[in-house]
């Protein structure tokens, strides 16, 4: 029996067999449609009914009541309602029973309880008695939970009836007309008279290129001759003014130069004269040898005066300290260098002004890289610098007081250890016999300090 069947029955069905046949069918339909469009209506005899069952026809747009104005649509009959009710109720009862069944409880095994099956059989070789075999379902605890709790989530089916869109789509997005678009057009903010390189187009050229102003109707937009003249005149006046200003500046500069030159000349003359005078003075008098005492006296006076003038001149060139020193020596007083320097020092400024940029730079140098630098300069530079390196007097006083107390205490201890009272006045040196004791005391002090 099994040998008579073809071998292919045992094979699994070919993959995509259903799809392949469906494709074939649809291809045929398309072909039929194609042929009918080609113009030979007789070739469309095949499957005329099945063709175009899904495509959009004019019929689907034409209302039935327009075609058949007296179309009667009867109310739904009670039998239909009842029929639908029963069929639907069965479906929903089933769904509901599934949904209401608590998750995890198994199927109750009582359904096949009574259906025990008996098989009678006889072994072929022996002539023995007929054997009976009773097949009974295994008892299942009806309350036993399901062995497999996995619940398969089934995605909802996506196969839908083909629904061609039967309304106009252009009324959803109405096309705008050109006027509307022009109305909404926002011109770009880029000047058409200037390019990014900074070249500009002349006014008259702009006017010429603008379509709104034709040659006939230039009217008020025309640039009149007067405007041109005015702008030219303004240009000329500006140029003239600039020339005058530069001329005046030149003249002033030349005057100043002349002044300076004259002064220099004068100074040169003075210097020359002075040099000649000096030469005249230094060279031996070759005049009358015999000089009377009065003349000699006069010459002496003159020399003295000259020396005095020279000294004055020198003194005027001296610094304040040197002048003071000179004054002191001139007056024959003994003035200490310190006093002179103190007197010569410039008056103290109460608040020293620092260039804050110095500190900023320092702060910047201290800071990390540019990314961490939030502020470009520190907030409390000026205030900080005034108090930063000044000693805090109250703190200093505290420290001093503590030190003093310490030392006093240690001194007392030391004195207690050395058996000596406090001393008054300068240190008295004594004989060498006390040396050991004092050393002892010192070591005790050291011990105390260490402990």
């Amino acid at each position: 029996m099994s040998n008579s069947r073809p071998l292919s029955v045992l094979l699994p069905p070919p993959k995509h067999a259903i799809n392949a046949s469906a494709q074939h069918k649809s291809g045929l339909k398309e072909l039929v449609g194609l042929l009918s469009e080609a113009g030979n209506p007789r070739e469309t005899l095949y499957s005329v009914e099945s063709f175009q069952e899904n495509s959009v026809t004019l019929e689907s747009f034409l209302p039935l009541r327009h075609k058949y104005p007296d179309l009667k649509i009867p109310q739904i009959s009670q039998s239909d309602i009842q029929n639908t009710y029963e069929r639907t109720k069965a479906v929903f009862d089933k769904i509901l029973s599934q949904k209401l069944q608590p998750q995890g409880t198994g199927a109750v095994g009582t359904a096949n309880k009574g259906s025990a099956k008996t098989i009678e059989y006889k072994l072929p070789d022996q002539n023995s008695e007929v054997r009976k075999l009773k097949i009974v379902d295994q008892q299942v605890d009806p309350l036993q939970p399901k062995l497999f709790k996995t619940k398969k989530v089934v995605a909802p089916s996506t196969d839908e009836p083909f629904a061609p869109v039967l309304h106009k789509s252009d009324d959803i997005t109405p096309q705008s007309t050109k006027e509307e678009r022009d109305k909404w057009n926002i011109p770009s903010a880029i000047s058409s008279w200037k390019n990014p390189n900074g070249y500009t187009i002349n006014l008259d050229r702009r006017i010429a290129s603008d379509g709104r102003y034709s040659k006939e109707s230039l009217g008020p937009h025309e640039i009149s001759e007067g405007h041109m003249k005015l702008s030219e005149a303004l240009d000329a006046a500006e140029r003239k003014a600039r020339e005058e200003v530069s001329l005046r500046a030149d003249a002033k500069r030349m005057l100043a130069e002349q002044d300076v030159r004259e002064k220099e000349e004068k100074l040169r003359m003075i210097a020359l004269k002075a040099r000649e005078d000096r030469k005249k003075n230094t060279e031996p008098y070759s005049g009358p040898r015999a000089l009377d005492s009065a003349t000699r006296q006069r010459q002496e006076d003159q020399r003295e005066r000259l020396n005095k003038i020279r000294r004055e001149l020198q003194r005027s060139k001296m610094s304040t300290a040197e002048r003071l020193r000179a004054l002191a020596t001139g007056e024959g007083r003994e003035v200490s260098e310190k006093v002179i320097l103190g007197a010569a020092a410039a008056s103290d400024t109460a608040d020293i002004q620092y260039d804050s940029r110095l500190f900023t730079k320092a702060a910047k140098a201290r800071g990390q890289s540019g990314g961490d630098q939030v502020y470009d300069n520190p907030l409390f530079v000026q205030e900080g610098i005034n108090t930063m390196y000044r000693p805090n007097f109250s703190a200093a006083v505290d420290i001093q007081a503590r030190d003093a107390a310490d030392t006093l205490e240690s001194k007392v201890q030391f004195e207690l250890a050395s058996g000596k009272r406090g001393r008054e006045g300068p240190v008295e040196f004594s004989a060498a016999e006390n040396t050991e004791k004092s050393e002892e005391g010192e070591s005790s002090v050291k011990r105390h300090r260490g402990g």
Partner: protein
Amino acid sequence: MSIDRIHGPEHAREVYLKHLWEKRFKNLAQVSPDLQKKIEDRKNVLERYEEFRSASSAPSEPSTGALVHYEKPLPDTAQTASLVRKVYREDDSFNLLMERQSRQLALEPSWHAPWKLMRVINGHNGWVRCVCVDPVDNEWFATGSNDTTIKVWDLASGKLKLTLAGHVMTVRSIAISQRHPLMFSASEDKLVKCWDLEKNTVVRDYHGHFSGVHTVDVHPTLDLIASAGRDAVVRLWDIRTRVPVMTLAGHKGPINQVKCFPVDPQIMSGSADSTVRLWDIRAGKAMKILTHHSKSVRAIAGNPSESSVATASTSDIRSWRLQDGQLLTNFRSEDTGIINCLSVNPDGVLFAGGDDGHLSFYDYKTGHKFQDLPTIKVPGSLESERGILSASFDQTGLRLITGESDKSIKVWKQIPGATQETHPNLPWNPRLESQRF
């Protein structure tokens, strides 16, 4: 034909089909009538016209040799009509725009009495987002508002009967069951609440929506409610056990309204992705998608006197046959603007409440807008507070209750004693553009 001239399987199939044709049909003397009919059906208009031309001009005189041909005068209208009828068959002639237009003009929409304001009810502190009339006794109606409360009013007197507080955000939709003493309310706080109308308390909450719930409806025969909202899925809940029995996914935008029907499609949902889906809830997927609307579908209303449904998006109301989703009518609503709510009464009047505060009334069969009136403003309300947010006819169809954005509820009725002579409807002049695609 040699093998090397066959390019690919497509070409091969074409060759095969031609071969088949040669073998089977070429030498047939007469084609069987059903085949002939199919062939005729497949012919397009131009081919038919060519045939007509050749058939009519076959016995014409041979050429006279004249330089200028004398053109025959065009046949008169009767002949033209016969030609049209011959070239265009019955169905095809309906495909012609002018033919459709002339047929439209020939229609005579039935006259309906115009509507007028009857009563203004104030009481809510926010927009009145939903109205639902008691389906059993037609004695009361419930409204849900932006002030998070649900109020129950007496239909006859307009007196407040009850205020139900429980939601923490806007109540977007109310549904009252015909078979249970239960009322369901959907809110933007992601909850659907079930109210017991005998104890006037919340008895159940339906948790599970990921975002605000916009709409809820009770299934007319099954113990199910359908709710949908901003998370673009329709959820079906078992009323008693509060189990979300089914989730219908597929919409690509927030869902504005969901409706339940006793037969397939049992659920219909309109979404902001401008589609309406008809759901097959036994299979759990959409059985048809209506893509005719081009804007968000905000409202769906079933017709109580026939099995059809009306849907509305901005300036576009259409009605559909329920069983197969076939387009029935394009309503004359090209200039209505945004439509927030729809309601149909048993007399064949469709009401559409506009977001700009206009009430428009349509003849359901023909789609004729027979009345268009602006809402009456409540004194002290702002100009911007004109908008019909929700509307419902009562069970008799004689009263229309609208919930508006000026926080008021308005009750409208037909003008008593109105006749076609005293109160003529708006004229019926269907425009060509109303045959929109």
